[in-house]
């Protein structure tokens, strides 16, 4: 006992004086003192961002459990499901970082707004069915106290896919898979097509598949605003800023074969404010990449793809922005009120809009004709040369039409296999992807959001199994090709 008492006396405690303060002189170390005070306050009140000297209310908070990069429909859907499925109310702090809160370039707002279940992959069909039932009950899911109910303006007319001779067998197979998974799709021969829709010219069409239920189109802007409103009411913080840097810590580990693997963990996200150099380092536990067409840049910031090619470190996220045009035209003699969204054999598609004989449509360009995704300028010659001839050939009434309006938007195009990327990255352990859906992201957003939230909260996919959508397929080379993409 005596040695212990002696050792207590000899060891320096917190109350011993520093050298140099014995004779009363002091060293003014203002910065250090201030950071000490701040640390003390923060240890007493953890989680508050206290800056005693300057106003930081326009900056995002200092800490956040989950940082979602990208505030489009996929990012908001992940935020919604995270907050809905968390075990205790207020357990997760979620921050959504969006570069442009006016959504002027967001694919979610500029899209055509269609939803269909006519895919060739069962996972895509399940995602669409889930999203259709979410949209049907949207006022129960996204209800906010004292706010008016959402009117999605859903038009249940379905999609009509036309197939030529060489695609007919594939289409029949796909319809069999779709029916098995529960989608209500019927096959039509050219004669039945002519009976039902007399305005179609069935030359070159061998088979058509028509969705009867849960398919159609709706207003994507309304869905976006509804999600935003609900998510804000659930306590998710929004921030207008750009992610410029990820600070991560790494861990070297050895695999079974004694090969070295470097696992990274992002612990800080630098969010830069608009039109200034000011940035805020946000300490985080998880980062979700839902940045749509710009996901590859975010992934590159995290160091994904920096390494020798053909290794896991060197596999980049193969999502690029691709520009797609949508044209609005007026044709008084066009197809009637019952026309579905028709997707032609040539890749052209159109649908009716409203009661006034206006139609929306476009065409996916082939690989050689890809326009430059630098800006969102519309190329009207594309309509004249590439879209109108096919339209006029399929629907003779469209030979006389007048283009009223046009706009362009980005697809977050997955150059590997045009299907989404969902789930964690194998090396950057706390980055989750929810991007790359190449044009059908918005119609699958509720399902994908739920899948990512389940992956985070439970550790595995529960409702819909999206194991084949993980990032590792890019390295392993396993393509899951989806045929019905427009």
């Amino acid at each position, binding site marked *: 006992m005596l040695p212990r008492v002696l050792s207590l006396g000899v060891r320096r405690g917190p109350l011993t004086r520093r050298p140099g303060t014995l004779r009363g002189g002091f060293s003014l170390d203002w910065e250090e003192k201030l950071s000490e005070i701040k640390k003390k306050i923060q240890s007493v009140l953890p989680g508050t961002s206290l800056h005693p000297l300057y106003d930081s209310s326009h900056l995002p908070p200092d800490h956040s459990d989950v940082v979602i990069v990208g505030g489009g429909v996929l990012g908001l859907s992940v935020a919604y499901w995270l907050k809905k499925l968390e075990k205790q109310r207020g357990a997760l702090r979620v921050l959504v970082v969006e570069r442009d809160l006016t959504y002027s370039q967001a694919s979610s707002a500029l899209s055509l707004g269609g939803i269909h279940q006519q895919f060739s992959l069962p996972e895509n069909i399940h995602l669409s069915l889930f999203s259709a039932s979410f949209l049907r009950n949207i006022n129960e899911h996204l209800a906010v106290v004292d706010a008016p109910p959402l009117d999605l303006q859903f038009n249940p007319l379905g999609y009509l896919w036309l197939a030529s001779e060489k695609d007919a067998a594939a289409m029949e197979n796909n319809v069999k898979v779709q029916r098995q998974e529960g989608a209500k799709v019927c096959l039509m021969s050219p004669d039945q097509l002519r009976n039902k829709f007399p305005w179609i010219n069935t030359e070159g069409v061998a088979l058509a598949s028509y969705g009867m239920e849960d398919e159609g189109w709706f207003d994507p802007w309304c869905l976006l605003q509804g999600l935003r409103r609900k998510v804000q009411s659930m306590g998710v913080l929004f921030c207008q800023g750009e992610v410029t840097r990820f600070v991560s810590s790494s861990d070297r580990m050895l695999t079974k074969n004694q090969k070295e693997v470097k696992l990274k963990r992002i612990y800080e996200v630098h969010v830069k404010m608009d039109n200034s150099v000011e940035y805020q380092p946000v300490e985080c536990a998880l980062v979700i990449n839902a940045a749509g067409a710009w996901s590859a840049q975010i992934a590159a910031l995290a160091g994904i793809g920096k390494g020798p090619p053909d290794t896991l470190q060197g596999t980049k996220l193969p999502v690029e922005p691709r520009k797609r045009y949508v044209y609005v035209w007026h044709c008084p003699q066009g197809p*009637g009120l019952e026309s579905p969204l028709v997707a032609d054999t040539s890749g052209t598609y159109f649908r009716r809009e409203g009661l006034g004989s206006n139609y929306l449509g476009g065409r996916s360009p082939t690989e050689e004709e890809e326009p430059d995704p630098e800006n969102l300028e519309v190329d009207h010659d594309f309509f004249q040369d590439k879209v109108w001839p096919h339209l006029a050939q399929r629907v003779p009434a469209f030979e006389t039409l007048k283009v009223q*309006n046009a706009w362009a938007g980005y697809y977050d195009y997955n150059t590997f296999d045009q299907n989404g990327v969902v789930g964690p990255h194998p090396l950057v352990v706390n980055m989750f992807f929810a991007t790359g859906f190449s044009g059908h992201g918005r119609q699958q957003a509720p399902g994908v959001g739920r899948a990512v939230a389940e992956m985070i909260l439970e550790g595995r996919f529960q409702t819909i199994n999206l194991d084949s959508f993980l990032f590792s397929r890019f390295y392993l080379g396993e393509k899951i090709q989806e045929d019905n993409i427009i």
Partner: protein
Amino acid sequence: LSSPFSQSLRLVAPIGNRSTRGIHQLGGAVDPESSQKKRRTMLQYLSDHFYDVEFLRGYFLQNKMDKVHQKNRFRDKEWIRPDKYGHFSQEFWNFSEVPVEAVDASDCAINYEGLENLHLLKELQSLSLQRCPHMDDWCLSRLYPLADSLQELSLAGCPRISERGLACLHHLQNLRRLDISNLPSVSNPGLTQILVEEMLPNCKVVGVNLAEGLKLGPEEQPQDTDRPIPA
């Protein structure tokens, strides 16, 4: 001296050491003596219960007529309604093979999942869904399986149905009468009626006063200034 009943019993249930005789008897090698006995016992039985053969024939005929009447008892009758407590009669369960011709679900809180029950009614001719508060466009897209038989449909007064839902009624090619009066969510009732009439040429569409759409001056619609695309 065996009683007639034990004789018949032996014919039907061969047990134990009588099995060989039982098989012979069942196999058709029936000795004539026992069958005569059987006929005699049945004749005895009948003559005990019926006065004469004509009476018996009358009895069988009456049975058959009763069966036919039972099958057609709803032919010219009115609707099956609930009583004043809102309950349907328990006898209703016996009529499961009778095809349903008309359903009146007015003011009923039927929704999307409930409409699935109507898919089984393959001979439904008339459906009335007036003033149903939960009927909306999604629900109308569920009516297509009734296309072969449905002739009359009434959607008057449903607050959530818009012209987008009315467009998917084009599957119902046998429709002869469609009532779309008083739909508050339809934006332009006159134009909608014309387009629906074009869509269903054999159908008589009622309910909209065409002069209603004509107003004296244009009405300003509030613009949603947040949209990147003009609506």
